[in-house]
């Protein structure tokens, strides 16, 4: 039984990396180059849901499935902001999550980057104007890179994260 199952994963179903997106690469290239060199080609990511509808989380999860296999690029999700280089933040920041997001940012050691994921994180999406939301992620913490989409597909996410990792 176990053999059939292991066979199911062979030949590898993992797909090639998406081609670089020039716009994202250009954006990422402006990030602090020295700091990125220090970290090498490996980044630890801490995901923070600051008010999302959970759609973005579903696609972020998909990055770990065998088709996308995020870890092959040296990118991995960690359980604590204290272990993270990158905060991946989703959602329009809700009033009730503002403080938790600020604290998570403060708990992340530098050098660090913030990636805003999804139309909500970028500009509140359909929740714009709600009295219960503070605003886009950059209203609360400084954002280095934005990946749009509602939700962004795993390929779009991968392209964004690779831009962070690979651009010169």
């Amino acid at each position, binding site marked *: 039984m*176990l053999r059939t199952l292991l066979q*199911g*994963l062979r030949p590898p179903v993992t797909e090639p990396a998406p081609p670089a997106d020039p716009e994202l690469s250009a954006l990422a290239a402006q990030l602090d180059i020295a700091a990125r060199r220090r970290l090498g080609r490996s980044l630890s990511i801490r995901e923070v849901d600051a008010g999302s509808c959970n759609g973005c989380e579903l696609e972020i*999860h998909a990055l770990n*499935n065998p088709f996308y296999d995020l870890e092959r690029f040296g990118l991995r999700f960690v359980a604590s902001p204290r272990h993270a280089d990158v905060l991946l933040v989703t959602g329009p920041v809700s009033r*009730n999550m503002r403080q*938790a997001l600020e604290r998570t940012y403060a708990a992340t050691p530098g050098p660090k980057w913030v990636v805003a994921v999804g139309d909500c994180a970028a500009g509140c999406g359909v*929740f714009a104007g*709600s009295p*219960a939301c503070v605003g886009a992620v950059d209203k609360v913490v400084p954002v280095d890179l934005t990946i749009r989409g509602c939700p962004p597909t795993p390929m779009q996410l991968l392209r964004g994260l690779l831009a962070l990792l690979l651009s010169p």
Partner: protein
Amino acid sequence: MSAWDQAAARLTAGDATLVSVWGEPGRAHLALLDDAMRVTSMDCPNGRFPSIGRVHPAAIRLERAMRDLHGLDPIGLPDTRPWLIHGAAPTDYPFLPVQGENLHQVPVGPVHAGVIEPGHFRFTCDGETVVRLEQRFGYVHKGIDALMAGAEIGAAARVSGRLSGDSTVAYAIAFARAVEQALAMEIPPRAVWLRGLMAELERLANHFGDIGAICNDASFSIMLAHCAMLRERVLRASADCFGHRLMMDCVIPGGVAVDPTDCSALRTLVPEVRAAFRRLVELYDGAASLADRTVGTGIVRSELATRFGAGGYVGRASGRDFDARRFPGYAPYDALSFDVPVLTAGDVDARVWIRIKETEQSLDLVEQILDRLSPGPARIALPSGSGEGLAMVEGFRGDIFAWVRIENGRVSRSHLRDPSWFQWPLLEAAIEGNIVADFPLCNKSFNCSYSGHDV
């Protein structure tokens, strides 16, 4: 006795199930289900109305939300702490006092270790054993009621589809059906079938994701790898047919926004996925080390599931034989044949088995729908008008309730009730007497929505 008090009495006597209780400024509404779904409304110009939570605990959190959102005052509500609105000092929250010897507390969240939504869990433990869990939610409260009030119908539909992203299709159908009832309109048959198709694809994707994730939380990660691939296949086929992996905004009031020309991706998908899944089920069934973690863990007693009207796999794993597709029922399910699995063990294992059986049913349903799908229009324009409508839809997690009032082509008020409202409280009960380390497993087996609950 007023109609409101009579309804409360029926709930206390167990003659009816609570569907929801919600408010708007100066008015309270209560929906019950017995042989049909009924709404009782009550004017409360001074904001006060007799609490339902006073006699029926399942209503307590909903009434705390009514206080927060609309300034209503349920007379006699046993717990008046804020629920959805945390105010300026979110960390000042009066958790219930705990007394006893040798107890310690473990606070967890709102930011958790995994890629999941935020919420706070406060465990009181005696050694490794949880003696009590208290939840605190509202972190992803986005002001849905306020956003919907006065919104144009199309915009409101897009918001409804984002109450809980994993159930975007189910929410969109619930909202659309409520609007269509309010405007007394019928949608074309093709739209009904396509909605059913999308709903079953959504159920499949989520059940695959859940089964894998539950096994992963019991450290059986090969199931996660395989189930995640099945989930991905379903999402890709959905994108092929409907242009969006989660099918967001594909269901709209008046029909469906996307009419696929080619569903061949689904025709090939179903038999392949069915064969692959059968092998995974054998693996689940035969792995003693996995059963050791899931059997007897996180038990929800059947009386509790019934009293709280818990829907979905949480209710059906604890003997509550309810599925909104069958009763109150709605199209196209009245023309389809499917079983509603029910088990009584109430543990993590039973919740996995309900999902397994429902997955098999949904695969059959997708094929039945594809066979019936015939050409024709897939949407019609909305008439202008006013009215009130309600609907109940079975999402993958359980029954979603939608109520809407339309005034001159705009939403004047609406209410969307996630199944999680009646499931989260049962998780507090299920974890009692289990060890802290089993909490992620129990929690995943519930997989309640934070966003859907926090509105």
